[in-house]
């Protein structure tokens, strides 16, 4: 019954997919062009790596480093706070309250960030923490804990409780049971969650725009101000953009299997 697709449809969908992807391909191609060739739409051109070598010499490296530090620290913090919380909520027997807490966590993901940014901006300003790593790392960690709690919940629920009960009967402590049984079994869930967080935080624009200027600014902010500050250097801008989009795109490709579960915060297993 699940017969393979007719060849004509196969060709049609392949062409559609290529057109859909084409702007990204065009961006990557443009990054290898000399600035004079950029306005020429020809696919044949003399390639250059100039823009990439300039990137690693110039101040762009500073923004790249900021992005890496902030994404890494926020992801780790969110995981460290979120995974135990999720585990406790799944395993603890306060079922009714536990469910309510889960829904409280999710309600915070769903609210638009503009609704909280004004007080957060004013508080960080008064603490003299604007344009610092601390302000962004704190905000990103907190914003992503609910995603961790929800995603891990769906993975922890997959683990049969008999396994944990058996370990306890054998005399293992809670902690030992977690590290010896739960952790190895939910390894895939943990890595999938981390990959998703890295993608979200790396791409985050809204809070970075409000809470940073230059010192702690991340790549998305630099790219958005690039054209007004540096003028019409499309090829160079494309090179920075290519560099900025490759890490999340590669992680997304690798993570395809768990993507649906992550994006629907565990509601659909995919």
């Amino acid at each position, binding site marked *: 019954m699940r017969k393979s697709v007719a060849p004509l449809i196969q060709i049609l969908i392949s062409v559609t997919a290529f057109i859909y992807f084409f702007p990204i391909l065009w961006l990557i191609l443009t990054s290898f062009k000399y600035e004079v060739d950029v306005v020429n739409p020809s696919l044949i051109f003399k390639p250059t790596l100039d823009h990439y070598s300039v990137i690693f010499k110039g101040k762009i490296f500073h923004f790249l480093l900021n992005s890496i530090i902030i994404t890494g620290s926020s992801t780790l913090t969110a995981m460290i706070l979120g995974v*135990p919380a999720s585990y406790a909520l799944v395993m603890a027997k306060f079922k009714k309250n536990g469910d309510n807490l889960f829904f409280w966590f*999710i309600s915070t993901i769903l609210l638009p*960030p503009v609704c909280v940014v004004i007080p957060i901006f004013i508080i960080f300003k008064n603490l003299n923490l604007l344009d610092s790593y601390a302000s962004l790392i704190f905000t990103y960690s907190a914003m992503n804990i609910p995603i961790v709690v929800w995603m891990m919940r769906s993975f922890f629920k997959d683990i049969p409780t008999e396994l944990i009960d058996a370990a306890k009967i054998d005399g293992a402590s809670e902690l030992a049971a977690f590290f010896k049984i739960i952790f190895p079994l939910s390894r895939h869930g943990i890595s999938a969650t981390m990959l998703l967080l890295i993608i979200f935080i790396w791409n985050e624009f809204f809070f970075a725009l409000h809470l940073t200027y230059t010192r702690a600014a991340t790549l998305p902010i630099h790219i958005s101000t690039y054209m007004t500050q540096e003028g019409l250097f499309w090829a160079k801008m494309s090179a920075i953009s290519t560099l900025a989009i490759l890490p999340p795109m590669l992680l997304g490709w690798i993570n395809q299997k768990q993507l649906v579960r992550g994006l*629907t915060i565990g509601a*659909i297993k995919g």
Partner: protein
Amino acid sequence: MKGKTGKSILTLPAIIVVALVTQIPIIITLCYSFFQWIVVRPDLPRKFVGFIYYKKLFSSNEFWLIFQNTMLLTFFSLAVCLALGITFAFLLYRPFPGAGIVRTLIISPFFIMDSVIGVFWRNVMLEPSFGLIHHIYNFLGSQSSQTPALLAQYPLFVISALIIWKWTPFFMLVLMAGLQSIPLEILEAAVVDGTNAWQRIYRIILPMLMKYITISLMLGLIFILKTFGLVFTTTHGGPGFASTNFPYYVYRTTFLGWNIGKGSSIAVILVIISLSIVMVLFKLLRKAITEEDV
């Protein structure tokens, strides 16, 4: 019993941190919305003004234009995303040689940061005198007429197109998961019973897909309602207010106009709109989750 309290303590740090950046700021925003506080006008005292900003907003044309923009942007994008997502899902859920590559190509725009999408499309793709659109336009044989400046003429439409480009993969992925969850036996039984393809789609596939469609619509709605980066990097909400949506309106009022009171009132209105959507979503999610747990 000891283990029980021990475990619930594990949730405490997470709850505190999340409350600090979400719950408490929302309450503060609500308070700000009742105060006159214009940072760039130190001559005006900071004072309690009650519902004045809300009254002013509801009676201003600007507010209703932005309301309309937000709804158009959100619901037009959602409808097209769903239609395209279903189409792609139907074409891609059955394996064929190269299906993996095709799927990978289609989901790619979803991982691209908004600022790159905005800056790249505004310049390299859509710039009327040098962008790719200029060459496509010439190639199609309209040498004489000028390439239209799409972003200036139809800003809302272009932003919507970019949202669709980015969010269709999300719908496709969720709906593909839905299609793959339908047991083959049911479809085979339907074939044996002599149904035709349309009957199978309407009577079996669509009803079984309903849960997936509602979840993707609800989450898509919430995410698209938040759209900010694309507006910021393509049009800055302009020309005038032509492409301003609620999130950008809050930004413009609060961080460009420095009117904290008015900005907060708009944010509160957006919270109310989002909360009403979230309530419906909760009911659906609860149903989906309890079904799955059983």
